[in-house]
């Protein structure tokens, strides 16, 4: 099967090359406002897809996602702020290009943020084993708030003043890269044996246990993976805004991500992507009625629940296979 492997590697190089090109040419061609929206879209997509893994596919109702994002953001920012420049200097002497050294440090920082967030996901996930539905929701909300309050009290990351002077390493390439990574990972995860296990936990936990599925393992797994990507999203967020404050990570933020997942359809990756884009762009259009924005949002949420709770896409998906089959039949 060497052909397949070569095709895969070629495909990967093509995608990376495309991203690099986009990153090089796009920012100068479009106005900064649009650029910011694209970056925020990418980050929100990561958040929505990672939350969908926990809420939509595994059926664990988590409204503490902002906490994971906060951990990822703050820890990666702290890493680059305190250790970053030193590391880059020492790396530059080893590696030829300055930009390569910067990239290595940045990616490492992001992974560090993601890993710490994943650890938090572990801590949050384990109690979830004993909790169902509403209780789990409140417990995750509580964890999110506790995380926020703890960060608020750490002086080294700015406490109540906020974390300033974060180096601005985020660019379009990294946002798109990690966004694609999140989507591909979650998608592959879901359409695998693991994915079946997640779905079985969502559908009927008792039956799943009876079938021999270790629901404990899979529930915690969902939390950990979801938290990891949320952490990376947080890291990208922090290094884009160059400033972090715990006020960005209240449960309102968690609820915004939940709205994205619910609007798109729990259990639909395509839906989450679409809803994330819509809900990032919509506030810009609604700027005219800025004061009414949250009222419209919440009212829409209620109406959505009353009329079409499965969201836009329900449990449907966008399938490359379908499109490929169409082409193949033509050939």
């Amino acid at each position, binding site marked *: 099967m060497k052909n397949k492997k070569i095709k895969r590697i070629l495909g990967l190089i093509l995608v990376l090359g495309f991203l690099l090109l986009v990153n090089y040419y796009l920012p100068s061609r479009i106005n900064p406002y649009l650029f910011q929206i694209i970056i925020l879209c990418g980050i929100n997509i990561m958040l929505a897809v990672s939350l969908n893994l926990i809420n939509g596919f595994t059926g664990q109702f988590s409204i503490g996602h902002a906490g994971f994002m906060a951990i990822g953001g703050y820890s990666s920012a702290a890493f680059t702020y305190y250790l970053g420049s030193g590391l880059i200097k020492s790396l530059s002497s080893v590696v030829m290009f300055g930009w390569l050294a910067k990239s290595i440090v940045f990616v490492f920082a992001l992974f560090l943020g993601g890993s710490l967030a994943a650890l938090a996901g572990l801590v949050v996930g384990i109690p979830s084993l004993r909790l169902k539905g509403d209780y789990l929701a409140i417990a995750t909300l509580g964890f999110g708030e506790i995380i926020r309050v703890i960060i608020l009290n750490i002086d080294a990351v700015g406490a109540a003043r906020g974390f300033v002077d974060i180096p601005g390493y985020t660019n379009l390439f990294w946002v798109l890269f990690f966004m694609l990574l999140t989507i591909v990972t979650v998608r592959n995860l879901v359409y695998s044996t693991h994915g079946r296990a997640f779905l079985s936990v969502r559908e009927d936990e*008792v039956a799943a246990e009876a079938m021999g599925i270790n629901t404990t393992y899979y529930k915690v797994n969902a939390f950990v993976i979801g938290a990891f990507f949320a952490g990376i999203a947080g890291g990208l967020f922090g290094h884009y805004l160059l400033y972090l404050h715990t006020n960005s990570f209240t449960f309102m933020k968690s609820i915004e991500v939940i709205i994205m997942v619910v609007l798109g359809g729990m259990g639909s990756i395509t839906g989450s992507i679409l809803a994330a884009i819509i809900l990032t762009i919509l506030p810009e259009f609604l700027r005219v009625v800025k004061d009414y924005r949250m009222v419209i949002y919440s009212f829409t949420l209620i109406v959505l629940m009353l009329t079409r709770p499965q969201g836009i896409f329900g449990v449907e998906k966008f399938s490359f296979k379908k499109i490929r089959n169409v082409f193949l039949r033509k050939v």
Partner: protein
Amino acid sequence: MSEFIQQLINGIAWGSIYALIALGYTMVYGVLRLINFAHGDVYMVGAFAGFFASRWLGIAQKPTFLGILLVFLISMLVCACLGVIIERGVYKPLRKAPRLTVLIAAIGVSLFLENAGQLIFGADPKFFPQIIPKKDLISSGGVILTNQQTMVVGISLLLMALLQLFIMRTKTGKAMRAVSFNREAASLMGIATDNIITITFVIGSALAGAAAILVALTNPKIEPLMGIMPGIKAFVAAVLGGIGNIPGAMLGGMIMGIAEVMVVGYLSSTYRDAIAFAILILILLFKPSGLLGAFTGEKV
């Protein structure tokens, strides 16, 4: 030692407030198995209703006992109506829907009330007329008990006693207990479950309104987001005592109030909100059915 007693008194005063709000949560959960996230915001609306009522009645200039009583009653009435509207409009159509959907709808109602409140009332805090002048009733050995605190605790205990009487001694109360035990069996026995559920919301919301006025009389600042934190803490109190259990809600409220005041007094005020969640997580880990709750096994 005297400081400890002082903190204890403060804690009991706050605890009564949490208990009143927690009663609303626990009763609704008992009959509907639903966490009414909007309850904290009903509390907020009650405070504003009382604010406008007191303005309309001109209480600030002429504080009378009748006037204060009217403010209480108006606030409780407004809250009760709001509770009915929410129940009939949002929760009733979703009776058969999966829990997640109802939960999200409840969050939606809560957000709606908060933001509509900010729009209608303005996000800036208003000042509730302090019609009951603060007077130290007992002041000995560094411990101060004010008339306000006595009033808060006294009225709360009175309302809770009335509720307990209602639940235990009246036919409707019995019906409420039946519905919370098993809704379908209750309807088979001829109980009008829809009406009972509505009555539950009415009572719960009215109690929240009373709590709001009690708080507003002692802490003058009211603003549209004031219901979020007390709502969450009252929910934790309800869970702590055993959700669905009325004496449990009262007990849970007291413990929450005391714990919070102790943490603020002895540890640090920044952890004030976190203590509620810490208690929640602890109780959910070690005794999820709550202190007074009964463990109902998971049915297959």
